[in-house]
């Protein structure tokens, strides 16, 4: 059945739904009633201008009447039917069904798409359940304890003349295990509760670190002038209630040790003076303090927000930082308003961060923008450098870092990022494909959930 025939049925359906007579619609669209009759019974093909004017009179999207949308819908209807082989057989073809009941067909199509979307979500969650190391360990602990309890209780119940020494011993074990089970179950419930919150709780050591750093807005004043950094770090870790797991504390300790080292090598006042003079320029900081670019970038991201040189001084622009390993996985995130970082999954492949990864050791500087309406643009400085010391026969382990410095044109008194030497064009970038509205994007790896799917 040629697709063109269906458009007529669709027009007839819409007209009747709106209580229009054939003659009325024909007159409004500027054709004869008999011609409309032929169209409605799919005896004349229709397209172009006439389709547009009929759509206008009927007050529907022309695409709803036209073939493209129909083809997409019919394909989806076919899929929906194939997805449920156990359903009672239907005589009508998807084409006939869509032609006769366009409203219902559209509803079914949308429901089917929603089902696919939810199936995908379930898959992702299921994946998480299987691969979440904390959850796996916690469940294992609970099941092991339950096993011990069951076995011990079985002995106590089923052994008629149990010697007192054994009995006491098993009672003690039972008591111990019951306490352990209670702890384990509570921990598990707390963990699942957090994960279930709409905002998403802290679920991985890396997220614990981020929550911890977020509380201090990534600036650790206690480490800026600490005489005994080791002790200061332990105090900070003890006080941080957000650090709940040993690995979370481990991540935080490593970050704080790095922070303390950087604070020693690049004293706060000197860095601020450098920024005051040169702007937020990682290269200038690296030169000034003879450190690597990644260290300079990390240090700039440690700076406190606010005026640079005391009260009423120039404001430091918002500075974010993101790092990834050689797999492109984000391993450090300091968010900045106006430039979103994906919470889960991979980021936008157009970020200079990833270009840096494919051009190791080459510092890159681009003006980037996520908001396509051009509200906020950022200077992105990226570089990939090896994290291990060079050695023969050992491949270098690269990590890439991208400093994201807010640019607020027209806002007086702000310290600019180091100026782009030539008038570089703004590079439009996204967050993550799934939630990116940009169309016709060559590096796109999966469709966006924001486009309506047609």
């Amino acid at each position, binding site marked *: 059945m040629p697709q063109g025939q269906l458009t007529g049925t669709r027009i007839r359906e819409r007209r009747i739904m709106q209580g229009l007579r054939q003659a009325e619609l024909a007159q409004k669209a500027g054709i004869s009633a008999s011609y409309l009759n032929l169209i409605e019974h799919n005896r004349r093909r229709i397209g172009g201008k006439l389709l547009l004017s009929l759509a206008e009179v009927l007050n529907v999207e022309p695409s709803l009447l036209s073939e493209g949308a129909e083809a997409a819908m019919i394909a989806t209807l076919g899929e929906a039917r194939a997805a449920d082989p156990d359903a009672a057989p239907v005589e009508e073809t998807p084409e006939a069904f869509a032609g006769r009941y366009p409203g219902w067909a559209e509803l079914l199509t949308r429901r089917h798409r929603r089902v696919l979307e939810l199936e995908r979500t379930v898959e992702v969650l299921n994946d998480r359940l299987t691969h979440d190391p904390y959850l796996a360990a916690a*469940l*294992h602990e609970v*099941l*092991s*304890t*339950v*096993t*011990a*309890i*069951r*076995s*011990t209780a*079985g*002995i106590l119940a*089923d*052994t008629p003349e149990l010697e007192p020494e*054994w009995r006491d*011993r*098993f009672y003690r*074990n039972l008591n*111990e*295990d019951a306490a352990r089970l209670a702890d384990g179950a509570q921990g598990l419930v707390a963990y699942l509760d957090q994960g279930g919150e709409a905002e998403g709780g802290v679920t991985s050591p890396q997220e614990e670190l981020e929550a911890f750093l977020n509380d201090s807005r990534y600036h650790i004043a206690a480490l800026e002038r600490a005489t005994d950094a080791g002790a200061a770090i332990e105090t900070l870790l003890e006080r941080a209630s957000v650090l709940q797991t040993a690995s979370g504390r481990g991540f935080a300790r490593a970050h704080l040790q790095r922070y303390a080292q950087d604070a020693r090598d690049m004293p706060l006042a000197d860095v601020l003076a450098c920024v005051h003079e040169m702007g937020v320029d990682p290269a200038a900081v690296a030169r000034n303090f003879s450190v690597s670019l990644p260290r300079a970038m990390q240090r700039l991201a440690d700076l406190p927000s606010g005026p640079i040189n005391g009260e009423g001084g120039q404001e430091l622009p918002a500075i974010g930082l993101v790092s990834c390993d050689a797999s492109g996985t984000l391993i450090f995130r300091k968010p900045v308003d106006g430039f979103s970082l994906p919470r889960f999954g991979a980021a936008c492949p157009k970020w200079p961060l990833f270009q840096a990864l494919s051009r190791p050791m080459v510092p890159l500087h681009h003006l980037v923008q996520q908001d396509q309406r051009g509200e906020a643009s950022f200077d992105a400085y990226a570089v990939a450098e090896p994290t291990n010391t060079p050695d023969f026969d050992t491949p270098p382990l690269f990590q890439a870092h991208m400093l994201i410095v807010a640019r607020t044109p027209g806002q007086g008194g702000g310290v600019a990022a180091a100026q782009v030497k030539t008038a570089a064009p703004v590079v439009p970038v996204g967050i993550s494909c799934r939630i990116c509205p940009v169309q016709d994007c060559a590096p796109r790896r999966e469709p966006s959930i924001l486009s309506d799917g047609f």
Partner: protein
Amino acid sequence: MGKNVLIIEDEPNIIEAISFILSRDGWDVATHSNGHDAVDVVRSKQPDLLILDVMLPGKSGYDILTELRAEQGTADLPVLMLTARGQNKDRELATRLGASRFMTKPFSNAEVLEALRELVSN
């Protein structure tokens, strides 16, 4: 019966409970609680039957089983695998690697005894 069974499991209270019921059932019970040298221990003790936990510190039960099956002396040793995950893929993996029987925690004492009796009578 007087048969030797070796239990490799890292949870002390499970070891204690299982050892107790097995020795009451007439088994000579030996225990070991880490994965590192588990294969050596099996080699030296030469048990008639092995109860092997999957999650062990040092080396997983699957790896231990693989090594045991590759060795002539232990290729046919009856092995009862214990796991806290009853998923099909775990069961499949255990069977493929040559586990004689697979048991999911938490099990009852009677189940363990029955499984052991079945394994030695085969």
